[in-house]
């Protein structure tokens, strides 16, 4: 009897190790989120005149936090990417701490997520901005969160929090020209997006996967008159809420998932 049990256990070990070997050929993989900045139908670019509607824009900077990325599998279960706080941007040099430090000019559109569980995925969720826990406590420096990226509140000497999104430049219509700074922030403007992929997408070590998203600044500023309101911040609460809603509801769309 004893012998039989030993034999059975041995067989089980063999079977499980065999099974493991077949699994090893394909395992967890990488997924790139590519945020492709656009200005209407054309590409977003700095320091170029870009026409949107009746106005000519010349952008100096686009920056925003993408946070708390969640991937939804085809079976409906979810995988939350840990420590997922990413600063997406296309910007010239940024003066930080009143000039003590300069954050270098940078263009960053891709977020590479590693160790994503092997599975088929149908949707992606993420937020624009920084959740209240981290926005209210600058010592919790998860992911890329930092006080020294110039994305803490412009007034953080007395209102310590993050800027969620920032778009800067000039706008012209006829003879009128304005320099604008359109920012969002404060906890009520932390918005979560849930975007279905055009088709289900497999993530595994077998091939690199990529989700491409358009981020259209023309839609971000839709319905907002930057000549009338060239500075958008906490003191323009309703316009700031519109801007934050635009980022959450229309500016960002998934174009390709493969």
């Amino acid at each position, binding site marked *: 009897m004893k012998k039989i049990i030993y034999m059975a256990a041995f067989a089980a070990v063999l079977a499980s190790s065999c099974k493991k070997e077949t699994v090893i050929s394909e395992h967890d993989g990488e997924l790139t989120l590519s945020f492709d900045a656009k200005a209407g139908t054309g590409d977003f670019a700095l320091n170029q005149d870009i026409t949107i509607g009746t106005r000519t824009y010349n952008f100096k900077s686009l920056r925003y936090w993408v946070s708390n990325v969640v991937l939804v599998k085809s079976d409906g279960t979810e995988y939350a990417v840990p420590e997922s706080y990413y600063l997406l941007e296309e910007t010239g040099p940024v003066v930080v701490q009143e000039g*003590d430090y300069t954050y270098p000019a940078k263009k960053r559109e891709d977020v590479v997520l590693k160790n994503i569980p092997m599975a088929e995925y149908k949707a992606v969720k993420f937020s624009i901005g920084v959740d209240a826990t981290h926005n*209210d*406590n600058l*010592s919790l*420096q998860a992911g890329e969160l930092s*006080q020294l990226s110039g994305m803490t509140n412009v007034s953080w000497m*007395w209102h*310590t929090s993050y800027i969620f999104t920032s778009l800067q430049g000039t706008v012209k219509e006829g003879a009128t020209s304005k320099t604008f700074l359109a920012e969002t922030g404060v906890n009520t403007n932390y918005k979560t997006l849930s975007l279905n992929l055009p088709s289900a997408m497999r993530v595994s070590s077998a091939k690199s996967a990529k989700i491409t998203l358009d981020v259209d600044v023309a839609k971000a500023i839709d319905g907002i008159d930057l000549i009338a309101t060239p500075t958008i911040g*906490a003191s323009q*609460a309703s316009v700031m809420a519109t801007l934050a809603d635009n980022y959450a509801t229309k500016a960002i769309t998934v174009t390709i998932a493969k």
Partner: protein
Amino acid sequence: MQACSKTEMSPVPQPVELEVPANFPVPPSMPDNPLTREGIELGRRLFYDKRLSGNNTISCASCHSQSLSFSDGVALSQIGVSGSILHRHAPALLNMAWANNGLFWDGGSTNLESQAFAPLANRDEMNQELYELVNELKAVPDYVNRFREAFNDPEIKTGSIVKALAQFQRTLIAGQSRYDKFRRQEPGATLTVQEREGLQLVQSKCMGCHQGELFTDNRYHNNGIDQDFSDASLEGLFQGRFRISYDPADLGSFKTPTLRNVMLTAPYMHDGRFATINAVLDHYSSGVLSSPSLDPLMKQNGGMPGIPLSNSEKQSIIAFLKALTDESFISNPRFSNPH
């Protein structure tokens, strides 16, 4: 065996329970930054270290002196790195473990951790470039060890610096005044007749804001020291909490400071405009200015602005406030300069 040797290499910091006076409420929990023996001691060392200023001339203690209940005794300081006069009066630091409704006079910071970045980085205060501070501390082997022990992290991070400072500040508990001993019915503890009369006056006229055993509600009130808040300059500096909330009801509102140790923390108000406690009481009894955002608690004069007080009532209140001073707090060696 492996687990044992690992523990020896990176000792877990030892948890610390705050010693809360029996008459105090339970302090709010801070799960993101639990108090530890190592974190508190590191915070104390940083609090008193002039390396935390850009030109290494001032520490936190330069404007928060233990002998003055961690205040500085001047209306608006100009000992910051730039030498410019500051816009706000340095608040006293005591019973900060309960201060969970905003820091700064207008409450723009949610906790001590976030708050610390502002005086550290502000050009007119410590003007400390934060990366440079990390490098300065990395060059001191004692700090490298202490940060590793306190946060189980081989790296010194700006987040750990402010967490340590916050931990030390949360230990600054003042609750051993004569009033406290009387309140807790400790043997031999008494208040004089005049002091008791002062206590009753405070309870009936001041407790709307200076609530409970902490003698503050940690909220924001327009107490009638100004009445025109149209000046929006300096990013709303003169508009009080309105610059944070953008709620017109918050125009001219500032945070209620505690009455504890108040006899050590002159001058008074967010800009230190009143040099003496007498001037403060004179304001409440006969100087309250009316405005739409004036707190209704300031209208104790038959619906009109002001909290009428006779001269003898003022003297009784002052006698009581003296009994609220915790002398042991300002001589406690655990709060003093360790360097």
